[in-house]
């Protein structure tokens, strides 16, 4: 993919039978635009979507490989020299452009750890047992920065290898998943390439607000029906607490408007 701009956000969004990730990506792009109207935002999809909110609409260069396995294509598909890749089911609850300054001295930064909606580091390991059992770095691909560099090329080559040779790579893990998730693949790649090359020291980089049930101790899986949320337009409050950075809302059909 030719480079079209220096910096931009890239949102992979391939719809499934049950989830419209392109709708999620549109909501995410609109939330970023509320803070940064001139931001470069690209969607990576083979599906139809509302193009008007995106600066660039890019097709998957190697076609839809199915689910998480599309992720390794992001490196080749990005039209930006510096890219922040974002998972589609999030919203930007505050300005984020200061992250570029934080990231630009690194080749790759994968976010590490996550927060609850009180902005406290999440302590539950319910969803991270595989990581703990295998001493994998606690990375979340939901926010991943890279600049065109050898480190980034090596990292995403490794990500591709792990996805495409999962049956071999999974033998390295205790209790492996049958279908590899992006977070696990990124964690394995980070461990092989060196976590110090692709993550920031703990507590320094941005983290997502994770709204899964066991992270926030709600009674049900659907926090949107249990907690009070307010669209402050721009911004979001959950149980009266103003959120910042990216909120990973998890319930894919939740819409702010």
């Amino acid at each position, binding site marked *: 993919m030719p480079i079209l701009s220096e910096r931009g956000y890239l949102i992979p969004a391939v719809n499934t039978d049950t989830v419209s990730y392109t709708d999620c990506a549109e909501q995410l792009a609109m939330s970023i635009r509320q803070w940064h109207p001139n931001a470069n935002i690209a969607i990576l999809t083979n599906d139809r979507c509302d193009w008007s909110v995106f600066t660039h609409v890019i097709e998957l260069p190697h076609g839809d490989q199915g689910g998480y396995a599309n992720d390794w294509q992001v490196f080749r598909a990005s039209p930006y020299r510096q890219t922040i890749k974002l998972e589609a089911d999030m919203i930007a609850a505050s300005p984020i452009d200061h992250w570029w300054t934080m990231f630009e001295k690194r080749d790759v930064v994968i976010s590490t750890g996550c927060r609850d909606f009180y902005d406290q580091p999440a302590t539950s390991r319910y969803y991270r047992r595989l990581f703990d059992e295998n001493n994998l770095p606690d990375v979340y691909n939901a926010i991943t920065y890279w600049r065109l560099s050898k480190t980034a090329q090596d990292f995403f080559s490794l990500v591709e290898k792990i996805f495409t040779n999962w049956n071999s790579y999974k033998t390295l893990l205790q209790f492996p998943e049958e279908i590899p998730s992006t977070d696990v693949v990124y964690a394995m790649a980070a461990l092989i390439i060196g976590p110090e090359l692709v993550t920031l020291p703990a507590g320094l980089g941005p983290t997502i607000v994770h709204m899964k049930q066991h992270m926030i101790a709600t009674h049900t899986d659907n926090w949107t029906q249990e907690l009070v949320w307010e669209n402050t337009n721009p911004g979001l409050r959950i149980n009266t*607490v103003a959120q910042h950075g990216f909120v990973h809302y998890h319930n894919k059909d939740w819409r702010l408007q």
Partner: protein
Amino acid sequence: MTTGALIFAFNNEQIDYVAMANWSAKNIHRHLDIPVCLVTDKEPIQPHVFDSVAIANPVNAGQRYFSDYNANVMWHNTNRMDAYTLSPWDQTLVLDADYVVASDQLSTVLKSRQDFLCYRWAQDVTGLQTFEDLNYFGNHRMPMWWATVMMFRRSTAAELLFDSMQMIRDNWTHYRNLYKNPNPTYRNDHALSIALNTLNGHTLKVDGIPGTLASLTPDHRLTQLDVDSYRVDFLTSDKKPRWITVTQDFHAMGKQQLGAIVANPL
């Protein structure tokens, strides 16, 4: 700039809060060397050391269970937000009657530059309990700031804070539902926490008193060893008897035991 301490004390059938406040006033004079104003509903009958007495209407919050009395006790402690208008000073330290001043540690709070300060975290002096339940409130664990010790300067920020607490108290059913608070009884700590969050842009970024509010739960035995020296007897998690000596300020959550110390001074 004038500085003083304000203690709210409304007696009920079980607890002589005014006597506690009078005992505390002596400690405050000795350690902090500042005047003390009692806020109560009628002029104290017994001799006292208060520098001034402010008469206020005790707003009834209903009954609250006190484990050391094993009884529901009438709770007259909902007008803490009146501290701003009742205080005769520019800078005020608002203390619960059951906060034991055993040192001059609060003098550093009085030297701070903030318009308002209170504790974010309370800590069990025995280290047995995590206070995970007490440092948060509501079903979704909203962080709680403690109204046990508050310092404020006469300022727009402090006035807004106390006005907000009053608004929250006056609409308590709404706020109780909003924060899914299973306990119907109004608490100053909860109103303070909600007000602080609101006034700080809903960010939970609030300047607090450094350190933790040392606290003693009613299930431990409190006795006085000497002036400013207290003994706490307790059972460890494996039921072994232990005791520690406390020589710092602390919050005596068991009113009965503190009441006995106050009634039988050394």
